[in-house]
């Protein structure tokens, strides 16, 4: 079978199973978005704690690194004995694997603010909290956002593994396709995921640029 024939068969398979496809795509998106949002909610505050407290910082960075070293499949598999099957364990697995890029960038972004800027802020009578809110976070935002973008793209790929513990998503077609030697099914799931990653990356890049130009800190980050 030629490549074009294969793509034709894939397209036909997709159209014939459109309802199923949209369900899986939505599941996939849900896994990605929910785990991503949870990870942001956890790592950004952790990053802030890390720059204020050196001892906490060591622990936080170790935690993020360890979470990242475990292969994603193992993270997902580890959830099985802990949380059983289904959407929730898949979500927790993905969440764990998403932490590090955001955490690293949050810390790097908050730390990249120049000492002179912080000294001026303190000297003018800003409290540490005001410095964080009005100076550090706005200046770090483009860097933090770059971390979110990286981890989202990674996350789209990792979410295929959710299938192994019954979490659903496009992995159902890809891994099912491998097992059944159903190449059109496999390709339909894989290409859709690739396009999804590209589309999300593009959309986030757009928001990132917007953040940079709106706050004027795009130039500052480029300069740093």
């Amino acid at each position: 079978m030629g490549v074009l024939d294969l793509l034709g068969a894939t397209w036909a398979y997709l159209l014939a199973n459109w309802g199923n496809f949209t369900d899986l795509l939505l599941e996939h998106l849900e896994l990605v978005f929910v785990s991503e949002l949870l990870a942001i909610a956890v790592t950004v505050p952790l990053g802030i704690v890390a720059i204020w407290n050196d001892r906490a910082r060591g622990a936080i960075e170790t935690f993020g690194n360890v979470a990242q070293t475990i292969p994603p499949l193992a993270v997902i598999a580890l959830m099985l004995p802990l949380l059983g099957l289904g959407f929730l364990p898949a979500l927790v697995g993905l969440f764990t694997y998403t932490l590090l890029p955001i955490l690293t960038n949050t810390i790097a972004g908050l730390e990249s603010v120049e000492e002179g800027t912080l000294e001026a802020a303190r000297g003018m009578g800003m409290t540490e909290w005001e410095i964080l809110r009005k100076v550090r976070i706005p200046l770090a935002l483009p860097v933090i956002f770059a971390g979110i973008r990286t981890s989202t793209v990674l996350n789209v790929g990792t979410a295929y593994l959710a299938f192994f513990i019954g979490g659903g998503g496009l992995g159902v077609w890809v891994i099912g396709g491998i097992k059944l030697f159903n190449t059109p099914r496999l390709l339909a799931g894989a290409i859709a995921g690739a396009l999804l990653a590209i589309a999300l990356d593009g959309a986030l890049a757009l928001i990132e640029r917007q953040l940079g130009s709106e706050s004027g800190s795009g130039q500052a980050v480029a300069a740093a």
Partner: protein
Amino acid sequence: MIRFDSVDKTYPDGTEAVNGLDIEVEAGTTTVLVGPSGCGKTTTMKLINRLEEPTGGTIYYDDTDVTDLDATELRRKIGYVIQDVGLFEHMTVGKNVATVPELEGWDREHIDDRVEELLDFVGLPAEEYRDSYPSELSGGQQQRVGVARALAADPDVILMDEPFGALDPITREELQDEFLDIQSEIETTIVFVTHDINEALKMGNRIAVMNEGECVQYDSPTALLNDPSTKFVKDFIGPDRTLKRLRVLRVEEVMDAEIPAEHRDIVDAFEGGEDTAMADGGELIPVSPGDSTQVALSRCIQAGVEALPVVENADIIGIVTEAAIRQRQAEGA
């Protein structure tokens, strides 16, 4: 206004940054802390707004021990300008200047008016610069914004830590002159830190020469030049004390309002609107009362004359002679 009473600052690692410091900064004057790097001048300045805390002695702000005051409130009453400028890169110039008024919760209209006034004041017309970002400005312009930001909430005291140190010599000179103009208008209390004795002599009403955490001499620029108390001060001022004295001495201090008969011709020539070009190619340029005697002497030599008319608002108000400058120098030395 600000008084240091045997203040010590020893860092946890044992470094003695400041040792038994007694200085009084009078309201409305510019006090310069000058000395080689590591002499404790920056630490001394930071003790005032509590970016550093003393390990001994007391610093009084309006007769109150600063450690009894709320650090945040204290800092908002004190303007702060540093060498790094430290503008907020993500905010417009206008927003930067508005920082302290916003923290203090002024209303919008009041803040906008103040920002406009200040930007115009420091030579950056608000219409043009208010919405620019710091990265679009030159180093000199950034520090002008830095000064405007420090002045925003009309502080009682302004602390300046080598504010013009990172600028090229021409821009530095320009900002120094502008700042002297600003100071003569606002008459606030300024504590100015520098390692450059020329800057200290130019900016200061009073100069504290510091070395190894101690104040070696605290005097007016003239007294410092005429009578350095130790060899260290003498060496720090350098071998060209006489020339430096010329720079500090203003024309108005040596000028003669009565024009002596022997110099009548110069004044007549000038008043008559005659060609001021001299026979030997030099040009006779009058001086203003605020000019330094260094400028006056230089113009005398250039024009090949012994006296120059002193002009204020296009009127001749007196005459300054080389002899008078020399005589004053001899008295000082």
